[in-house]
């Protein structure tokens, strides 16, 4: 066996590195979740186990029926024990349990040290120990990384919470992940929710596979020099990256002095032409960056992207840049977004066709709101508002129903991009006609 798919881990600042840290509701009604507490439920100092056996015994005892499904962390110190996290899958007696797999190697185990239950104190522990479909609940607080960490389990979920696991916190009530000079490497599907990430490494998250999903997260690279990324996807030699990645209600922020990127994607190869294609940003906020989203020029592959109701503000270069130099099939879809301030262009696109630019407000791009680096007549730029840009378009053509009026933001300097009273952008939405 192995750790169960549906194991839930608990991380809190008041936890302990040695604790069991996880729970799977193996026997509903009998299993008791001891991971959601600061201290372990049982501390084991005399663990014993025969070679290759899954039965762990203790003369001192203390096992209870409710412990089934809890993780026990066996740590270094015993004889022949392999340190790690194990699930109690059967309670034989107060002195004996069965684990999901044998905890010993090379001989009979004696003097085993372990903790049953209790929260662990580090997300890093989960990243390198969590297995398929495991979820890590992170209680509000500040967590500082001690090394860069690469994801091991193939589908991991990390969820921040404040008071209750069922309530999503906002703002500073979300756990703060201080990556310091380190980063997290994503190697398979990985989900973040309700977290704040800060750090000064080249990137906070290094994407290496498809399926990075984040909801209600903030990514801030605090380094004020060099090329810095909130999320950097390097698909070199990888298949299908970063397709199927989704960012919902997330914030991407850089620091003055750096060439900063909210999301950058490099390393496409020809094999990635399909599943690499589809990235979605919904209700996201990119600000104080050099580039909000950039896809590297490449001979192959692509990153067809959807931007839905996103805001780009105070961009030092291009808000969205996909200036390819060869044809690629994936359109850019930008709908109902707000763009405020770019020292170059809001959209800088090349060799993409059938782009849908609909219902957006483009404000204050020094050069162009929409730039195609080649003359491309196959854009669809309808029902947008263009205000105070160098020019609305270059290399592409405006469609119908565009306007050029002051959007009357409430307070853009204060990051309030709501439309004020009398704004021409209010109710500029669409209604689906039946029998169109």
């Amino acid at each position, binding site marked *: 066996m192995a750790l169960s798919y549906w194991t839930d881990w608990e991380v809190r600042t008041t936890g302990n590195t040695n604790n069991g840290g996880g729970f799977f509701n193996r026997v509903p009604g009998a299993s008791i979740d001891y991971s959601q507490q600061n201290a372990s439920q049982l501390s084991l100092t005399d663990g014993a186990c025969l070679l290759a056996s899954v039965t762990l015994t203790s003369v001192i005892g203390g096992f209870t029926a409710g412990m089934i499904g809890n993780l026990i962390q066996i740590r270094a110190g015993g004889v022949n024990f392999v340190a790690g996290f194990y699930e109690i899958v059967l309670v034989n007696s107060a002195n004996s349990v069965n684990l999901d797999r044998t905890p010993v190697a090379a001989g009979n185990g004696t003097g085993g040290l372990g903790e049953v239950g209790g929260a662990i104190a580090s997300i890093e522990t989960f990243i390198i120990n969590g297995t398929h479909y495991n979820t890590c609940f992170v209680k509000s607080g500040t967590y500082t990384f001690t090394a860069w960490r690469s994801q091991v389990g193939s589908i991991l979920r990390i969820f921040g919470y404040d008071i209750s696991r069922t309530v999503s916190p906002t703002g500073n009530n979300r756990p703060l992940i201080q990556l310091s000079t380190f980063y997290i490497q994503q190697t398979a599907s990985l989900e973040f929710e309700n977290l704040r990430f800060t750090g000064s490494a080249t990137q906070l998250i290094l994407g290496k596979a498809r399926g990075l999903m984040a909801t209600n997260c903030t990514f801030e690279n605090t380094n004020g020099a060099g090329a810095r990324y909130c999320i950097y996807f390097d698909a070199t030699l990888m298949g299908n990256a970063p397709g199927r990645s989704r960012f*919902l209600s997330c914030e991407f922020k850089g620091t003055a002095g750096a060439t900063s990127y909210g999301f950058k994607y490099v390393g496409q190869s020809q094999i990635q*032409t399909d599943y690499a294609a*589809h990235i979605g940003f919904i*209700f996201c906020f990119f600000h104080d960056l050099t580039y909000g989203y950039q896809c590297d020029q490449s001979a192959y592959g692509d990153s067809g992207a959807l931007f839905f109701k996103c805001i780009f503000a105070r961009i030092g270069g291009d808000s969205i840049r996909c200036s390819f130099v060869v044809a690629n099939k994936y359109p850019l879809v930008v709908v109902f977004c707000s763009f405020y301030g770019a020292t170059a262009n809001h959209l800088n696109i090349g060799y993409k*066709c059938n782009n849908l630019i*609909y219902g957006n407000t483009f404000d204050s791009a020094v050069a162009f709101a929409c730039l195609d680096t080649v003359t491309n007549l196959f854009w669809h730029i309808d029902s947008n508002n263009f205000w105070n840009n160098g020019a609305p378009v270059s290399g592409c053509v405006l469609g119908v129903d565009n306007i050029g009026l002051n959007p009357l933001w409430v307070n853009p300097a204060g990051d309030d991009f709501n439309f004020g009273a009398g704004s021409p952008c209010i109710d500029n939405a669409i209604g689906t006609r*039946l*029998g169109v």
Partner: protein
Amino acid sequence: MSLPTTANWEVRITGNANNGGGFNNRIPGTSIDYSQQNASQLSKADLACAAGSTTVTSATNGFTPQMVGNYMRIRAGANFTVGFYEIVQFNGVGSIELDRVPVTGIGANGVAEVGGAQIQISAAVVSDFIAGNTIHVKTGTYAAHPNIALTDSGQFTVKAISGYDVVRGDAPIGNNRPLLQLGVNKISYSGVVLNLEIKNLRIESSNTKVIDPINTNFNLFLKNVKITHTAIAGGPLYCLYGSAGGNYTILDCEFSGTAGAISYGINPFGTALTVLNSHFHDLTSGIVLAGGSSGLNVLFCIFNRMAQSAIVGSEMSSCIINNTFANCGRSGFQNVIAGVIGGDLVINNTFSDCITAGMETLSDPFICRNNNFYGCGVPVLSSAFRSLRLCDNNTYVNPQFVAPGSNYALQRTSGLIDRAFSMRLGV
């Protein structure tokens, strides 16, 4: 020379297949568009042309300077090559220059029309419909319309077919849009790459694939187009079929089938597909994927009266946002591949009266938030549901449609009004 990329074609039911049908505003202020009229401006039967020459003469005269830029359709005559030609120069009332040589020897007794609208998007029109051109189709019913077999446009240029009612660009709706009754025929594409826009039309056909890209790299933009599959039996049948290597962007469109057939709105078949503000109804499924997809965005659409699932497929990579799903024989959204190929994002939708489930998926991970489920077998059917921390903030109330089946606007008292996401800055 050749026919111009900047030409506009005119098709109207009161036109004529012999007419010139096209116009290029070659000399602004002088050129007059004679294509936007039923009858030709000039009819000739005595055209002459020396071998290898672009100069066409007529002993009976009739040419005017204003005809420059108009198309002349030559349809008969000794050594004349049938086709559309642009008048590029006025030499005199008895002489003009064409864009290219119209003869294979010494031409005599040439029969031709200058100006006047074409009567349909005929094979002849399509053969000279080049990148950059727009075919304007005036309102009316085009019965027994032939196949429209399109070819390349080039990478960054477009071929456009645009319906209108009274004047070009008026973007009619409902039955004021021209109706192409294709019968068993279809719109197809073959070639290397085609960028095609179709706007403001109604299209009916019983062909297996009403729009059928035979080759890859077909990029299509549909706006304000209604496609009705009229077959009453058989299947699978498709209003729109995908083109691997291509992309489709669809805005303000309608897809429907006919009872008795197994009909689908769209099968992307490897096409990157975005559908915005469109209506799918009376189909087996609205969108069905025969294999993997290259990305599916469905935004602000309505799906109702589906015999099966509204959106169904495997290995989809989907963003399904702000849609209405109602009366589905199976599920609103169905992604049926198990395992780690996930990534679906389903937010802000309303699922009502879906027999099996509002949303049915074996994929993981996915995001399912801020939806409303009402009257469905179960809201979400998923092997991963037990741990779906991302499946939250959903509601389960009567959406209070104004008139289900015909009007999916929300009543004033609906709990779904203004329930959508609003974005927090500094999230």
